[in-house]
């Protein structure tokens, strides 16, 4: 499927589910997403990524809305500053579920959309050509810089710089800055140098030309039906929640 179709449908699902604010719907969306991830063999990845994001947020929402609630009347537990109420728990659960929909749908989209196809789709779309380059270059650079930082850390360890008398005499803050300097400076220096060297090469090849006659390595299959679904989902992502909210208010 075209990456933009997936993104548009995901936006429609998130905005409509948020506007509905009905826990059976939200729970169903989460379960469907986990099912989609399972069919692609990525259930563990989606579950792990979602849990890593959601657990600290849920803890935060529980603390803010439920554990020290002063407004609720149905007190479940009270001890000193602690005041757990059923109203507070309901608010925390509603907020937690609202966020769970966004995170799980996002994590599912992340595994469902091939990043190379997303870059190619952005490149083909009528947006500035810089957008595709920036996304592609960033996604390629992150693992490369992580490898380079590990190599720099290994090289500095081989020089036994941690055992140097200067390092042993330094206080904790100076030691922390020394660790940052020994690894971050070579990393930043080499990366900025690479960027500076890349610029004239790109400029020499006419980047970022807005001319449409460019040879593309990768094409993204699209269809009339998908374009129709995409447009309807994009419009629906705005109109459907608006109608739900107006209906709810009336």
């Amino acid at each position, binding site marked *: 499927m075209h990456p933009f179709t997936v993104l548009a449908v995901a936006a429609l699902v998130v905005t409509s589910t948020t506007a509905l604010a009905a826990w059976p719907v939200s729970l169903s969306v989460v379960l469907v997403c986990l099912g989609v991830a399972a069919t692609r063999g990525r259930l563990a990845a989606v579950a792990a990524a979602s849990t890593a994001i959601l657990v600290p947020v849920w803890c935060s929402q529980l603390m803010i809305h439920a554990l020290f609630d002063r407004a609720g009347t149905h007190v479940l537990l009270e001890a000193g500053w602690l005041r757990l109420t059923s109203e507070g728990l309901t608010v925390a659960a509603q907020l937690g579920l*609202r966020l769970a929909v966004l995170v799980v749908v996002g994590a599912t989209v*992340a595994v469902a959309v091939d990043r190379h196809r997303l870059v190619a789709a952005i490149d083909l779309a009528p947006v500035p050509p810089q957008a595709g380059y920036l996304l592609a270059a960033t996604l390629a650079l992150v693992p490369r810089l992580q490898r380079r930082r590990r190599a720099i850390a290994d090289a500095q360890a081989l020089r036994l710089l941690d055992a140097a008398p200067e390092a042993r005499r330094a206080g904790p803050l100076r030691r922390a800055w020394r660790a940052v300097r020994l690894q*971050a400076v070579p990393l930043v220096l080499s990366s900025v140098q690479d960027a500076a060297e890349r610029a004239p090469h790109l400029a020499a090849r006419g*980047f970022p030309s807005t001319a449409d006659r460019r040879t593309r390595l990768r094409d993204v299959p699209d269809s009339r039906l998908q374009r129709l679904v995409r447009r309807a989902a994009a419009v629906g992502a705005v109109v459907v929640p608006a109608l739900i*909210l107006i209906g709810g208010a009336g």
Partner: protein
Amino acid sequence: MSVPQPAAPEPAPGPESGTDATAGGLTLEDRPGHSGPGRRLLATAGFAILAVTYLALVLTQPAGIAEGLGQGVALAAFAGYLAAALLLLAAVLPELPVGTLTLIPVALALNIVLGQFVGSVMVPLYLDSIGTVLVGFLAGRRAGAATGVLGTLVWALFNPTVLPFAAGAGLIGLLAGTAARLGAVRRIVLAPLAGLVAGVIGGLVAAPVAAFVFGGTSGVGTGALVSAFGAMGDSLLSAVTKQALISDPGDKAVVFLIAALLVYALPGRLTRTFAFVRRYRVLGRRRQAQD
């Protein structure tokens, strides 16, 4: 041993952002695109949407964030902040010269890699905007703002909850460029002060999103602070704003200091390739190690 070096002769003014590949004198100067009325309109619309959304949230302070119209407030805040960020990006991106475009992905990757590394050896702050501030210092306000917004959009591929904070991240990049332009990097001691100011502004802008979209914060420590303020009688927005004013300025002060130290650690031949650095004399006199 270190010795003071005389300042380099001031070059002719150039464009605000981008690198100048004329260091070797073999290629044409890398000029940014022109800022047409359409792009100015986009930027104005972006700032206007951000201001209107922010003011509407702060002035009305809607109650009932989890039920009824609270869902509409969350969606409107999310959409308003995201739309503002995308409009600002659309206005700025085509203007950036190639030299800056090649620097931005490096900065975005550095945000992730340095954020992970520095966070592992120092105090538990976010420290996820070192690359953004670095670009602001080297290439100016527009490049800094574009880096902030793009960094958030790329990070949203891994964590969609950061999406509405794109405008705030762009603002930090813009403020970093402004600080460098005003001379905050010429003396290292001024950099954390500029970071403090940027942190206060960034915290104020981000607080309504945290309060009305997420109902608080995304971390346990920050959540404890918000709940403590809430227990003392503050409204949710007030508690989140106070928490942001405690966490963000310190974080940005450290980030601005680290970015300034990294800029000074870069060799002069490299920093001088950035027209913004030359035009606004971003860096002070350098001390060069002899050993």
